[in-house]
Structure formats: structure tokens, C-alpha cells
């Protein structure tokens, strides 16, 4: 069994965003008047741990500690300066040659899970996601105009062997649609 501060820690960690104090209390099954004590205990237990609790009057959030600012900055810079690597290049290639590909389609064409790569590409401004016109839960991915400019092309049609590679990728993509509807 988790202590209330540990349970609050898990909740805040999984949320990623600020949570209302009263919502945390509700989820923990404690009174709103008790939440202050629980968060105080969590704050104390996280002292010097690299991660800290940020509280406002209404909300509470987990963040990297201010002492960690330097190493986190280094990490972010490293993240952006790194080579894309095989997985992200492949993912970008699928999106480049198949504009509007969905996560499911990218996974299918690559045969592996692409969530981390998609996230990296989004963060680096190389792709953007747009809701499908017909099905809002579906996100379709496209190269950003910046990415096209960086590649020195106006559209996907200017990519090397555009016709051939797009057609081959489209053929594989169709399999996914068939599988998904089965």
C-alpha cells in the first residue's frame, strides 16, 4: 500500500500537468483540508531529489528542481543537437513520402512502434499533426514548411524517386487499412 504522499507523487508524475488540489484530494480519497499536509510531506521527501513539487493556491505540479536547471538545459540542448538516428529518419521518411500518414500506418510500414520517433520529430519542428477531417481522433502527420525548406524542396513530389517510393509505401499502408478493418 502506498502512503498518501507517495500516491500523490504517482498521480502528479502521471499527470504531467498541474492538477487541482481538490482533484488530488478527491483521487486520494482524503479531505481537502488534509491535502496541504500530504503535499508538505511529499515536498519534504523530494528535497534534494532533483524533482520538486510546485504549489499554487489552487494547483499543484511536479517539476524538475531548480538545482537541476543546468543539467536539464544540457539535456534539452543535446536532445535538439543530436542526429536524428535511424528510427526517426525512417519515421520522417514515411511521413515525407506518405503525407498524412497516421501513427498506425507509420508503425505498420516500419513494423515497429514509432511513438518515440514521432514525439522527437514533433518536438524538433520537423513534422506536425493535424486532425483527420472525418475522424477527429485520428491524427495525420505532415512535414512542416520549415522541414521542406531545410530539405530544399517545395513538396513531396521533389523527393528522390518520389513516384516509385511513394507507391510502394502506399501499397504497404493499404494492408494496414485492410487489417484494421478486419
Amino acid at each position: 500500500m502506498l502512503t498518501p504522499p507517495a500516491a500523490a507523487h504517482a498521480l502528479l508524475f502521471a499527470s504531467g500537468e498541474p492538477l487541482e488540489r481538490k482533484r488530488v484530494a478527491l483521487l486520494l480519497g482524503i479531505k481537502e483540508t488534509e491535502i496541504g499536509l500530504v503535499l508538505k510531506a511529499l515536498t519534504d521527501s523530494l528535497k534534494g531529489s532533483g524533482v520538486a513539487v510546485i504549489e499554487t493556491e489552487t494547483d499543484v505540479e511536479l517539476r524538475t528542481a531548480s538545482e537541476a536547471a543546468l543539467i536539464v538545459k544540457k539535456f534539452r540542448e543535446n536532445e535538439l543537437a543530436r542526429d536524428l538516428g535511424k528510427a526517426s529518419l525512417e519515421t520522417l521518411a514515411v511521413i515525407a513520402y506518405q503525407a498524412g500518414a497516421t501513427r498506425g500506418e507509420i508503425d505498420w510500414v516500419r513494423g515497429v512502434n514509432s511513438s518515440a520517433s514521432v514525439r522527437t520529430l514533433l518536438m524538433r519542428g520537423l513534422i506536425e499533426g493535424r486532425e483527420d477531417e472525418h475522424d477527429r481522433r485520428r491524427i495525420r502527420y505532415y512535414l512542416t514548411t520549415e522541414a521542406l525548406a531545410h530539405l530544399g524542396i517545395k513538396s513531396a513530389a521533389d523527393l528522390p524517386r518520389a513516384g516509385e517510393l511513394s507507391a510502394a509505401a502506399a501499397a504497404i499502408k493499404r494492408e494496414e487499412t485492410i487489417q484494421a478493418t478486419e
Partner: protein
Amino acid sequence: METAISKIGFSIKTDSYEGPFEVLLDLIEARKLLVNDLALANITEDFIAHVRAQKTFPVDEAASFIQIAATLLLIKSKSLIPDLILSEDENVDVDDLKRRLAAYEKVREASRELARIFGKTVMMPAGERAPEIVFAPSSDLSIGALAEALAHVLAAHKTVEELPEARVKPLVTIEEMMDRLAKRVQTAMTLSFKDFAGSAKEKVEVIVSFLALLELVKQGAVAAEQHDLDIRISHTGTAVPRYS
């Protein structure tokens, strides 16, 4: 099909596909036997009945089912005809089947352990924050690299698709294997026919099983044909021959 199976009270689950080792273990466990020669000899007919009863056979599994059926028939024949001396290759097949079955038994146990805990207490990743987007291309990004990456993915996809068929051991066709095995056992039976006085019924069963299996291969649900060095096994149609 029903009678062949209900005879032993073993019902084949039709909702999900079972591999050959799984079928074997189910048959052995249903009879509360341990995995050994005796148990394998005991369930030979049931296994073949199962192979025959399959309405839809996953294309690339037909070969392993039939190969295992052949090995079981060797074990069964040996138990019926003590004079039958197995060749070195045949002994290897028999040993191999037993070892794989023992290993599979453990894997099945392990997978049941995992099934017990999988998805029960999922440890969640950190919640996602809306990413701060900074346009950051990289030195390894170019249109050439993209074309190459996609070509690589497409090639890998093709390899995966082709792999199942290539994995069937390209030594002989299924038909050749079955012919050889039929002759092999029939010869042994003729030679030691006098030993059969006491077990005529079982002898008939073995022969019937054999013929049924051969028929299955030759006219039935699967057709084997040789392409280059690989064996391709394909369904010839939806019509399944009846042996009843």
C-alpha cells in the same frame, strides 16, 4: 470430425489457433500422462485426427504439423513393432521432438505466469506536457537520407513477408517425406507381420492413419509444391475432403 475427437473427450478449441506443440501437450495433459514415448504413442491417432479436423490450416504451419505427425507415427510404429530399428536420422527426429516439447512445456508455463501479471499493474510513463517546439534539423537529415531510409524500410518489410515460407526446411517436399515414411513402415510391418497377431486392431489403425495423412497431403487442404529451393505450401481451396 466430431466422432474422431469426442472418442477421447478432448475438444479442440475452435476460437483460437493452436500450434502443434500446444495440441500435443493438451492431448497429453488431457490424458494425465507425462511427456514420454508411451504418451506420444498414445496420442498419435488423436493428433492426426486433429490435423485432419482442421478446417482452416494456417498455410505455413501445415508443414510442421505434418512433420510432427510423421515423427509421432514413427514412435507409434516403434511401439507396435518392436523389431523396427529406427535409423539415426529418425532417432534424431524423435529426440528432437521430445526435447522441443519439454522446452515448450516450460515456455507455456512462463507465458501463463506473464499472462497472470500482464496489464494488471501497469507502471505509467510521465505525463506528457505540450512540447516546446524548437525547429532543430540535424546534420544527418537530407533528401538522400530520407529516400535511403524509406527504401530500407520497404526492403525490410519485404523480407519479413517472405520469411515464413523460407523457413520451411527445404530438404524434401512433404509428399516425398510421407511417401518415404509410408514405405519405410509398410516394409517393416511386412517383415515382422507375425509379431502382429496380438495387435491386429492397432496395426489397422496405424495404416488407416497413414493413408489418411497421405491423402490429406495429396488431395486435401494443402498442396505442396517446390519453388526454387523453398517449399511453398498453399491452400488449394476451401473444399476439405472428408474421411468419415
